[in-house]
């Protein structure tokens, strides 16, 4: 049976909701509406002249082959970040879930990197990977690898993927650990009695039972890689070399803020908005179906 709160006054519920609705309208819907409006305009940076150009900004975008390259880069980047941060976090969580001395201390240490701002994470990794300054870069060079993210797109992308994934590992770790601890010991013990070895127990019991967590994290990580890695990319590569690390969000920034092309940048934001709506919809439908297993 559905629960229903009842109010004696008809208007009271609306009044109680009003502050939240107001905040949402002012800080979310109003800017979003502005972006949509702007995406149909061609305007100079100062806003002295503006023309309504219908879908011209969108047409220009979809005609531009480099936009598809950026789209592809974004998918490769997000996929790699999500895969790397999820798999490393899962590994660490499984380890930390074991009965070891000082487990709490380990856990705490593993959570720390989450507090590091993306831009700072970028700088930290530059210190390791810069071809002139970085210790890791020197190591790679002494191994005979010509590590050169200034010109080599693959190296540059690897660099931003590493930095972005590293930052997200803690968050994933936390959720995986909670998920692991929620798995009833009895199930695992029963399997052990039936003769399943650790590896098999992990694949056939732990992983399936973790799947709601994994799926939730997958969506969160992809959204993170899409939208929150801007600072990392900006400090490490500025989207270069030759667009190799330019993601959709970085392009919005470089076209709109650095380039002053507000219309084109707004059109890109609207497309991003549609992507997020899609991702969220998928998450809700899927998670809601899978949440009871």
């Amino acid at each position, binding site marked *: 049976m559905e629960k229903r709160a009842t109010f004696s006054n008809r208007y009271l519920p609306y009044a109680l909701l009003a502050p939240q609705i107001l905040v949402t309208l002012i800080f979310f819907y109003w800017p979003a509406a502005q972006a949509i409006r702007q995406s149909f305009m061609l305007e100079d940076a100062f806003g002295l002249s503006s023309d309504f150009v219908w879908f011209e900004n969108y047409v220009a975008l979809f005609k531009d082959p480099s936009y598809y390259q950026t789209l592809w880069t974004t998918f490769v980047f997000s996929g790699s970040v999500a895969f790397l941060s999820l798999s490393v976090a899962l590994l660490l969580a499984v380890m930390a879930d074991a009965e070891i001395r000082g487990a709490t201390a380990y856990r705490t240490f593993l959570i720390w990197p989450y507090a590091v701002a993306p831009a700072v994470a970028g700088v930290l990794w530059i210190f390791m990977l810069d071809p002139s300054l970085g210790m890791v870069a020197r190591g790679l060079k002494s191994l005979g690898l010509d590590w050169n993210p200034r010109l080599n797109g693959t190296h540059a992308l690897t660099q931003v993927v590493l930095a972005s994934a590293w930052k997200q590992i803690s968050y994933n770790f936390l959720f995986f650990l909670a998920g692991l601890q929620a798995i009833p010991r009895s199930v695992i013990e029963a399997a052990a009695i039936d003769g399943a070895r650790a590896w098999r127990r992990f694949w056939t019991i732990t992983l399936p039972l973790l799947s709601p967590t994994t799926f939730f994290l997958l969506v969160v990580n992809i959204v993170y890689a899409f939208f929150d890695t801007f600072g990392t990319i900006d400090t490490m590569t500025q*989207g270069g070399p030759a*667009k190799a690390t330019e993601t959709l969000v970085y392009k919005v920034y470089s076209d709109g803020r650095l380039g002053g*092309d507000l219309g084109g940048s707004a059109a890109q934001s609207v497309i991003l908005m549609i992507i997020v709506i899609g991702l969220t919809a998928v998450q809700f439908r899927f998670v809601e179906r899978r949440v009871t297993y």
Partner: protein
Amino acid sequence: MRLTRIAAFAAALGYAGTASAQTEIQWWHAMTGGNNEVVVKLAQEFNASQTDYKVVPSYKGSYPDAMNAGIAAFRAGNAPHILQVFEVGTATMMSARGAVKPVYQLMAEAGEAFDPKAYLPAITGYYSTAKGEMLSFPFNSSSMVMWINKDALKKAGLNADQPPKTWPEVFEAAKKLKAAGHATCGFSNAWATWAHIEQFSAWHNLPLSTKANGLDGFDTVLQFNGPTQVKHLENLVELQKQKVYDYSGRTNSGEGRFTSGECPIFLTSSGFYGNVKGNAKFDWAAVPMPYYPEVQGAPQNSIIGGASLWVMGGKSAAEYKGIAKFFAFLSNTDRQAKLHQESGYLPITRAAYEKVKASGFYEKNPSFQTALIELTGKEPTENSRGLRLGNMVQLRDMWSEELEAALAGQKTPKAALDAAVTRGNALLRQFERTAGR
């Protein structure tokens, strides 16, 4: 309620305390470190020199940040009086009629003594109309020079007092330097497109784009994909493979490779001076940019970089009067001469340059004069007066992308420069549509 009344009272007291009806002039800038101190000091000196006006400098972040802050403030109806804008933002600023007040108009209206001929044309030309009317006030100007590590040159068996003058000589020297232990980098540069496209074209008297590189109109068309530029890029690509040349990025983030001793020959801004002086643990010098001797008329003259001060529109006459006084204050010969020697910025007036020359300062510090010699060596031509292209920030990014693609071997140099021109022209046409009216 009571709190606000107290606050208002306190504010009134505060105002009364400072001075009677001082006009405040907001100056937004993007200078950090030692340069920030210069800005603050200039404002203090000006404020101490008179009582009617008070210049208030505020740091607004990097060049693009400061410019965007100014634009956003203008859109919100609360622009600063003076906004420092880097040279690549010039076209955007000057196309914003009504948003900015041209300096020549400001000086005329305020009745401040102002002789445009007193300024070095190589510097003010960049910020003036085709008719020579000064639009913005040059503040920190620099040009591109070649920094050399004299110790490294000596070690490689080269004559450090006769540094390479031409590109072929630079290539040869770099090969020797690489053989002598600079395995990762014989020579390099910061500001990739400024070095290899913009300065390169001016220095060889080649057009970057039609209509005097855009100075004569926004309907300019890029044309830097000529044979000389293609040949130069081919040379760089070839040398990149052997690491005789090694790319150091789009901005100046790679400059540390010179001061650390990794790259013994490095092209970057003359404004790099303070950094080199502070950090380089070897004997160094700044010499003119190299050129190709087979190109007729090369070397021509270089173009400037740096930033200028734009006066924003819609302010009161009293405020404009104060800004005009401040600019006159900045133009003062002694002040310019001192500023130049302390900060490394180029002097903007002829008188200041002559004064420093006469003082014998350049004999002791020849590296200081290199950029000035490059800028003033020859009467500027259509191709070397400067450049004024809309969406310049994006253009530079596009060109960098193409240079990077060529250097990484993904495209031939010719194809890369052709693409840089084609993509750039599309952007210029878009700018023309928004700015043409």
